[in-house]
């Protein structure tokens, strides 16, 4: 494979990183085959591809977490051998992982200097003052508004990420790898992250950016490399791609329409929420959702969107307000109540709220509905259960070895399909979706969008929380925007306007019309 690498517009600078013919197998399964990557100084380089394309593995090899089977790595033209994360850091390579694991009970500055604490020269104890001062200086320089003495566990995800980046800078990294840095942050925080990335570029640092969000890649990245099925496809300047050509390179086929919008008729009101309040979280939330409608809940992280749907589902208590299903007022004391009334909640976090990762595909799929598979309410009819599980695996194209494979060993997109199957099995009337496509690849996303549209067409009521604006704009018939726990905007599809939604999510800062429908 000798796809020509387009020459960088910046000139003939020696690339800070060159990886050549990298191959890697796990237990005999090839994951990377002859992959190469070239990254220049001061560039933001997107590494794209579907889940399972090998992006993370390639980056983990670079960060010293995995060892390559074959291939060469050059830093500034010199061949290097990276055998551990510690060595990688010494070589100036830092990785900001998708899920951060700081020591939550230590302070911010202790985390930054973890493993390389400055010692006082005479007493040989950790020099706390130096730690604090260095951190403060670093934060000032990078414009990070975090108290160095704060406990790490008290920070938001976005703040933790900033601290991690600051740590990478303080290790004098020349390459910083960011794996899905925006998967858990929104709006302003993303803007702040991009600002920080620009700052890193200005320092001459190369950033390798892994993301499933195409818009982001085009906003922030200079060049784009595409991997597919563990093989290198191509590298180009970002402006030589457009959205469609990039997606088709990633999946190896054309994706005509990512958002197959249903043409369902808007039917009767099935879910009516009035004055729903949870003190300190959200306040006086009222809306109606109809049969055949996809209603979007937009807003920044922490605006209270997830909390609203979790309260409707009976997973959280409320401090006031009413919930009506098909015109009947219902007090949701627990998820069991909601399930009984035909409501499903596809939660935002597969790993913590959605699935039992140690259990099999079958056990997860039938969990909500187990009673329907039981004689006398207790004895499970295994044959019927197995048949149903196999049907679901086929229907949702769940890529599993068989129904007994444990869910924890599946890819993110496949796991999400298991979650969908689990909740759609008892044919709920009202489906609450919380970030249904977070952290999954383009191909699986398209499939899930197809499923959502199909559900609306068949007369289901759908309420979807999403941080991804394209998703809201593409799928929803109506959108409600939350800001600080209140509804700040409500728009019909014909009035959809990206800018208006973003402004409403930030509380209409320039005093635009704010509306609170009853």
């Amino acid at each position, binding site marked *: 494979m000798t796809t020509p690498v387009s020459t960088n517009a910046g000139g003939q600078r020696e690339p800070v990183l060159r990886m050549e013919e990298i*191959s890697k*197998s*796990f*237990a*005999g*399964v*090839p994951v990377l*085959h002859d992959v190469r990557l070239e990254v220049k100084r001061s560039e933001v380089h997107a590494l794209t591809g579907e889940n399972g394309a090998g992006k993370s593995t390639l980056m983990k090899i670079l960060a010293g977490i995995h060892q390559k*089977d*074959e291939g060469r790595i050059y830093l500034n033209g010199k061949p290097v051998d990276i055998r551990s994360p510690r060595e990688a850091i010494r070589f100036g390579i830092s990785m900001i992982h998708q899920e951060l694991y700081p020591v939550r009970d230590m302070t911010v500055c202790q985390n930054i200097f973890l493993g390389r604490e400055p010692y006082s020269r005479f007493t040989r104890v950790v020099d706390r003052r130096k730690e604090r001062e260095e951190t403060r200086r670093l934060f000032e320089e990078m414009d990070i508004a975090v108290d160095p003495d704060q406990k790490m566990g008290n920070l938001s995800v976005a703040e933790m990420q900033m601290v991690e980046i600051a740590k990478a800078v303080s290790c004098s990294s020349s390459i910083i790898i960011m794996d899905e840095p925006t998967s858990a942050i929104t709006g302003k925080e993303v803007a702040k992250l991009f600002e920080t990335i620009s700052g890193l570029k200005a320092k001459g640092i190369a950033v390798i950016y892994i993301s499933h969000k195409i818009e982001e890649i085009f906003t922030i990245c200079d060049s784009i490399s595409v991997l597919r099925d563990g093989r290198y496809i191509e590298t180009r300047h970002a402006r030589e791609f457009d959205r469609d050509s990039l997606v088709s390179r990633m999946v190896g086929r054309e994706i005509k329409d990512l958002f197959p919008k249903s043409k369902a008729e808007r039917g009767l009101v099935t879910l009516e929420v009035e004055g729903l309040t949870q003190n300190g979280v959200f306040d006086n939330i009222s809306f109606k959702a109809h049969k055949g409608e996809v209603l979007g809940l937009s807003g920044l992280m922490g605006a209270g969107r997830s909390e609203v749907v979790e309260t409707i*589902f009976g*997973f959280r208590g409320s401090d006031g307000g009413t919930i009506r299903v098909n015109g009947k007022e219902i007090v949701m004391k*627990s*998820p*069991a109540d*909601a*399930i009984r009334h035909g409501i499903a*909640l596809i*939660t935002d976090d597969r790993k*913590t*709220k*959605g*699935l*039992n*990762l*140690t*259990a099999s595909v079958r*056990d997860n799929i039938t*969990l*909500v509905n*187990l*009673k329907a598979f*039981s004689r006398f*309410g*207790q*004895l*499970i009819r*295994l044959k019927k259960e197995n048949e149903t599980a196999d049907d679901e695996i086929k229907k949702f194209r769940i890529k599993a070895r068989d129904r007994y494979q444990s869910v924890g060993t599946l890819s993110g997109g496949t796991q999400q399909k298991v979650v969908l199957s*689990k909740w759609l099995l008892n044919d709920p009337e009202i489906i609450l979706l919380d970030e249904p496509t977070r952290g999954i690849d383009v191909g699986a996303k398209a499939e899930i969008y197809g499923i959502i549209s199909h559900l609306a067409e068949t007369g289901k009521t759908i309420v979807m929380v999403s941080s991804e604006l394209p998703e809201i704009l593409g799928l929803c018939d109506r959108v409600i925007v939350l800001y600080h726990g209140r509804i700040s905007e409500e728009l019909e599809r014909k009035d959809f306007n990206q800018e208006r939604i973003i402004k409403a999510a930030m509380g209409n800062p320039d005093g635009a019309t704010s509306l609170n429908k009853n």
Partner: protein
Amino acid sequence: METSTDELNATGDDAAAALSSADRRADKLRSAARFFSKYGIYFALILLVSVLAVISPPFFTAANLIDILRQISVIGILAVGQTVVIITAGIDLSVGSILALSAVMAASFAHPGQYPLIVPLIVGLGAGLVCGALNGFLIAKSKLAPFIVTLGMMTAARGMALVYTSGRPVFNLSNAYDTIGTGYLAGIPLPVVIFVMVILGGIFLLHYTRFGRYVYAVGGNELAAKVSGINTEKILIYVYILQGVLAGVAGVVLSSRVMSASPALGEGYELDAIAAAVIGGTSLMGGVGTITGTVVGALIIGVMNNGLDMLNVSSYWQQIVKGAIIVLAVLLDKKSKGKS
């Protein structure tokens, strides 16, 4: 790993074919690894029995093998309950003490000519049930750590057994009561029959009932179970009640076998029960474990004790071997799971 990459290079012009053959081989490898991680413990038991059969002929006789089953029956009954508890990501340290309390209470109602046999049985199992329910309520409702709650119960139940008996063993039990521990059914000791019934009940409960499925769900991910509409508190309470009742059963079996009930009965049994479950592949993290695995774990402990006895190895050394086996079993389990 090496070979598959070599193969890829060797047949470079027909990479697709090589890939699929490497794929197939890797598939075989992985399914072999899965097979081993699933059944490795069974092989270990077979190996252990074979070795002992060869080096010590009297070991491999029907009488001795039945003896082993009788020896492990009490620990085994506790271990079945412990498995269910550990699958919920819990632990029950109080089973040894509950066993003693149940035993002394049951025995005190089992003097000859006093009450019909059913009375001491109800008292013994009832005592276990009450202790288990208390454990369950505190763990499920007060959200206290199972380790702490059952540590407290372990101390308190032992204390209650001592108070109830003023520290003296209960003697002079009726023949009917003693038969439970010393009788036979079709040549098989009754404790073994009871153990087998508990095993079958446990397998049925865990794998064929909704309750069993929920036990795994709660242990694998309590939050996800809650979101799925499962009353996780109820499940936890029932699980500890089950364990309490089984400790009661074990108390009756043990006291009737030794024909007396000492308040010191069953000391340290909770750790043997945990060891059997863990050797059998039950994960302390929850969500993973089987009754059959635990039974094999208990058999490994029993066979090893018995075999070493026959080889005249001192019981001091036996403890060292047992300790090593516990750690080794979990280590092997972890290794084989990590690879697949």
